[in-house]
């Protein structure tokens, strides 16, 4: 695997580009791998459950894999619709364990299901936690029972909010091993505590910073 391995972000259906931009910056910071926003894809109609008015996340993962030709190491789908798997009422996201694709939904973090309207920073933080968690699964990490670890299972938003934006010491070691075995060289090897991209920085400001 070359050193140019990157993470791909794909909007499935309409998603605020600003959210994708901040997610891209934060994922790059967290994993030490460049994240790119790839070409958006429409939501396939056959993945929608007419009665439940939700989209089948497992089928979306297959769709992501079929439509992705970017060469990304892992691809993370982001959607604004509610997701489900047949046995569960809903899921925040889903990933292929040790696979290439993951998908997360903005629907519940944004409060669409319970009618709340949390601040944008809270929504972004939730979405980032979900994205890192699901990508963690694609890197071979299972659910972790260490207190506060981002790979811990969170069935509710409340529990999601209580999780740290960091991996525990074990998951850090296991992730570093995963990269090492595949000769992937992230910029650093400590997957703990990152700052969220500043909400106040407009897109062109951050672009100017990059040019400098």
């Amino acid at each position, binding site marked *: 695997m070359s050193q140019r391995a990157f993470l791909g972000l794909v909007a499935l259906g309409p998603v605020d580009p600003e959210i994708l931009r901040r997610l891209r910056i934060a994922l790059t910071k967290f994993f030490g791998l460049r994240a790119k926003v790839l070409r958006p894809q429409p939501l396939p109609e056959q993945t929608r459950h007419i009665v439940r008015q939700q989209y089948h996340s*497992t089928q979306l993962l297959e769709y992501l894999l079929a439509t992705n030709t970017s060469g990304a190491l892992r691809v993370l789908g982001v959607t604004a619709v509610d997701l*489900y*798997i*047949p*046995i*569960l*009422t*809903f*899921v925040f996201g889903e990933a292929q*364990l040790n696979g290439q694709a993951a998908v997360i939904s903005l629907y519940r973090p944004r409060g669409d299901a319970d009618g709340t309207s949390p601040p944008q920073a809270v929504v972004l933080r939730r979405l980032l936690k979900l994205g890192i968690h699901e990508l963690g*699964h694609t890197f071979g990490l*299972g*659910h972790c029972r260490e207190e506060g670890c981002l790979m811990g*299972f969170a*069935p*509710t938003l409340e529990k999601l909010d209580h999780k740290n934006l960091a991996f525990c*010491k*074990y998951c850090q*070691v*296991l992730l570093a091993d995963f990269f090492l075995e595949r000769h992937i060289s992230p910029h650093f090897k400590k997957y703990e505590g990152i700052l969220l991209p500043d909400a106040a920085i407009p897109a062109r400001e951050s672009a100017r910073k990059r040019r400098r």
Partner: protein
Amino acid sequence: MLPHKKIRILVVDDEPSIRESLSGWLRQDGFEVDTAADGVAALAMTKENHYDIMLIDVKMPEMDGLTLLKKLKETEPEAAVVMMTAHGAIQDAVDAMRLGAYDYLLKPFDLEELSLTVDKLVRLQTLAMENLILKDRMATMTRFENLIGQSPPMLALFEAIVDVAQTDATVLITGETGTGKELVARAIHAQSPRCYGPFIAINCGAFTEHLLESELFGHEKGAFTDAKFAKKGRLEMADAGTLFLDEIGDISMKMQIDLLRVLETHEFSRVGGTVTLHSDFRVIAATNRDLKEAIAQKTFRQDLYYRLNVVHLHVPPLRERVEDIPLLAHHFLRRFATETNKKIDSIHPDALEALKRYGWPGNVRELENAIERAVVVQKGRQIKVDDLPFITQPGQEPAAAKLTLEEMERQHIARILAAQGGNISTTAKILGINRTTLYHKIKKYGLSP
């Protein structure tokens, strides 16, 4: 049967998408999961494997969930069963609870509901396992025996023990179950400069991950629900002595990371504690597993292997030191005759020959048990071939003569599998067949690995 450390779950549902999504979710949570499409298939699977938890759909073709539950209560009474039923079918759920189901879930269920139910069941099954393990520990704690042998491989081992005892190097002892690995570790400790310090042994394979963590590192009061008092761990207790880590090949990947760190620094904290403790101990580890194979299968860390394998000692199986069998047999005879106050003082030459011919898959421990049994049943002064019925060669024993070739094979595989603690690799090696063939035979004969 020894309890399973990893919780194993069977999902039974006729709907493929339900089976896939539920098993996928449970696997991500670290469980071993199998699936079955109907009750008939599920029953067949329970004959081949032990499941701690079963999630069963009520409505299925062939055999419905309630019929399956009734049958399971007869054959697998210890399994915790949760029924899955559709909304509007509450009566089914009530019937299931009457029949002994632990709980029921209404489909589709909430993530939190599923998580809470599974957590409850895991706690329940873990407690049952730990109970068994502790009983097993109490039984083994009372046993002690000496290392005995005059065969060339044993003489070489004695020499190596004397050499390595003088150093502080970490030792990895390998050998089949029952060969006496702990006795080798005790011998090293007894002849080392640390002999006046404690010899602390822990069977890593006998604990769940969390119990092992608490046993090794100790815990502070309130570290977890049952931690009513602070407790010293084995690492602390082994200060100035020797720490013997038995069945090291069975520890989880997380515990391997922790252990590696401790072996490097000799520093650690109790569970729930913040103070860094230091302990000066020498480490001796033992395993009956092929750690190189475990590394290849990514179930054992290479860095930990190198840290442990500074000096490697191998304890030969009893079948490779047949000349030691009479010596060991007489040693055990003297011990058990004294313990039972019997006047048995010899072993008939035919019986001794039979002992030497037998393969001893359970090694010295099996020989010890055989002699103990013979002493118990013998009324005279000498142990005879008839006192050792299970080691008699086929054809010499009337009962064995009635067995079919298949039945002989089934019994032999079952015995070796049990002696190897269910380890497929070592069992296949002893039997001289490959792992795939062994799996087929296990399935064919309905054995439990």
